[in-house]
């Protein structure tokens, strides 16, 4: 058997298995040894350059001679992004939202970063892209993509709303009006024609909603003549609003827009961005 496995003069390691199996004692190829050595050197350099050895149980460690940390790398990456955005952000500082809106390129920039801001701060109540979000009582917050605005739809009005917040009030009428009166008023409002019933003026609705029922931006009262509803446009929904009021304690409708300036969460530039972003949903009104 063994003569079939002629080693050709190459020495073997001397170990023999199964009677005839032996290992050649060949040197590994040179390129392989070079690779091994290079890898070993690489390991040592890598070990010393980067943070590696835990020094004690106090949580300290050998920080590496390169001084690398994940946070500095992240900061460096972020500074690259900031540099790209810088030329736009610098301009935004001294511009009014109206001036931003007049600049097509800046508007494009602002609506892109506005998308993220809106998602983080606004979409929970107003819905993605301002389509509105509803619970069982109706819309939580107004739709922002139509042209019906409680407090005005000009760019500066929107900006003011974001900065200062809004909180409208409607008194509950369950103790003031009879069920029949509420029913009559609700039907007239649902039909989009509140002035059709004399009760609208007699019971003082006009004080806030105006003689024509179209609301007043200064008070944030709703326009009752169009097809757009703040809470719930069904007959039941309208009755509920008249009966229980808005923002007057438990049972009434809840409609509070927080002040983002007071909350301190957003910078001035970010609030400007949001104003332009909301304006560009499609309902913004020209100055």
């Amino acid at each position, binding site marked *: 058997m063994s003569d079939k496995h002629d080693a050709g003069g190459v020495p073997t390691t001397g170990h023999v298995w199964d009677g005839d199996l032996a290992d050649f004692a060949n040197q590994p190829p040179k390129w392989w040894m070079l690779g091994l050595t290079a890898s070993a050197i690489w390991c040592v350099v890598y070990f010393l350059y980067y943070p590696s050895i835990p020094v004690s149980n106090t949580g300290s460690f050998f920080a590496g001679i390169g001084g690398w940390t994940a946070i500095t790398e992240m900061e460096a990456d972020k500074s690259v992004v900031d540099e790209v955005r810088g030329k736009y952000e610098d301009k935004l500082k001294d511009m009014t939202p109206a001036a931003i809106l007049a600049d097509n390129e800046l508007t494009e920039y602002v609506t892109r970063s506005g998308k993220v801001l809106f998602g983080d701060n606004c979409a929970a109540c107003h819905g993605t892209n301002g*389509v509105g979000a509803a619970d069982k009582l109706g819309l939580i917050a107004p739709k922002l993509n139509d042209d019906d605005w409680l407090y005005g739809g000009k760019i500066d009005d929107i900006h003011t709303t974001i900065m200062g917040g809004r909180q409208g009030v409607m008194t509950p009428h369950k103790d003031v009006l009879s069920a029949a009166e509420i029913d009559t008023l609700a039907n007239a409002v649902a039909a989009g024609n509140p002035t059709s019933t004399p009760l609208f003026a007699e019971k003082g609705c006009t004080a806030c909603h105006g003689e024509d029922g179209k609301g007043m931006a200064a008070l944030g009262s709703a326009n009752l003549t169009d097809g*757009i509803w703040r809470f719930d446009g069904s007959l039941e929904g309208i009755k509920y609003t008249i009966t229980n009021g808005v923002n007057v304690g438990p049972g009434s409708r809840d409609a509070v827009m927080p002040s983002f300036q007071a909350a301190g969460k957003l910078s001035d530039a970010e609030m400007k961005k949001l104003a332009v972003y909301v304006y560009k949903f499609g309902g913004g009104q020209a100055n």
Partner: protein
Amino acid sequence: MNEATDNKETGSVTSIYHEFEAWQVNRGEKTIHAKRMPGFFRTIKNYTQLALWLPFFLVPYLRWNDKQAILFDIQNRQFHFFDIMVLPQDIWMLSLVLLIAAMTLFAVTSVASRVWCGYFCFQTAWTDWFTWIEDKIEGNPAARRKLDDAPMSLDKIKKKGIKHAVWMLLALLTGISFSVWFVDAYEYWNNLIHLNLPKVGWVVLAMFFFGTYILAGFLREQACIWLCPYARIQGVMGDAQTILPTYDTARGEPRGKLRKGGETGAPQGDCIDCFQCVQVCPTGVDIRHGQQLGCITCGLCIDACDAIMDKVGKPRGLIRYASLDEMSGKPTHKLYQHPRTLVYLAIILVAMSGIVYGLTHLGAMSLKVLPERQPLFVQMSDGSVQNKYAFKVLNKTDKDIHVKVTAESGLEGQMLIGAETPPLTHHGRGTSFTIFVKVPSKNLKQEITPIHFRVEGVEDPAVFAEYTSNFNGPKP
């Protein structure tokens, strides 16, 4: 396991050893010092190499309208070809260019084997130039082998030093020439001389410098044999009709040394076993073993053999371009009887017409309109329905243009909002803006109405682009 199968298996495995004995391949143990002989194919090769690669060195310096005539401006994502500017949006044409390149390679290879390898390939060309330099400085192959084996001396250091310096110079020039296809050539030289290249510029230059120096100076034919995938791919593209340098076995064998005093009684073929064909081969193959993977079909062995045949007074063509059909005595076919080649040519034609169509229909402007999807439409207070569209206009001219936006939907009372002042589109890049379209809901007869948008230059209405999208509304 029974005796029979055991034997059979052993037999089939051991047969690979016989294959190996007949297998001749240069594994790079010894540097090939090929002899340079003049001849027909040598001349062709000199010209084809220069024809393809001289433009590589020179074309970037060509100017057109004060700009580089051909510039792959990667940084600004523009490709300039004389008056034509191709932007990334039109890059689909690149796939057709690559298709043409591949099919040309296939077609040529199916007709005459590895023509690319032998006459055009940069590896062949640069190796040829590098060995020419070596030949001029160190002398002929015999002198070079002697110099390689000689102990270190001042003369050896001088010769080798000069050779490597010239090689490096050529390698450097190669790296520079590659780089200036992608940045302005004159600016590049200026930056290079002032050692002011950007980091990526140095990296590219270093890669091509070392790549050229190592591949053409040291790796040489080993790159063709072990590194290059195309060598193998092309190897399988030949068939019995493909012509390639072939040793005429019937005429040449039995080979034998030329003897003084003329013919002896023993039968002798035309091959005088002079090994000139092997000595001139840049990849070190012996063509008399037949076609093999080391052969780049450069035809230099044909030149060598023809020269010898002339000397010994025998007809030329002992080694010649011939097909397997011809050598085995089968009838040879005409080129148009080679369906495979015709299919390749057809594909090339299709791809070329695609490019011609693309280049003639580049247009000066392109438009994409993306309708808002959340929400599809908005009910407005006056009872109308509004859709929002994101416009993306690509202005391919060389100046910024104000554009007029129009929409055609056939819907009565349609209002276009957002383009009251014509938006400015920036040249050479995309510009986005938002457009609203409002239609009274009583005029909407269906949920989806096609709407045709058009943007055109305010000053020059010939610069325009169109896009058809949908206007969405509630169920009527």
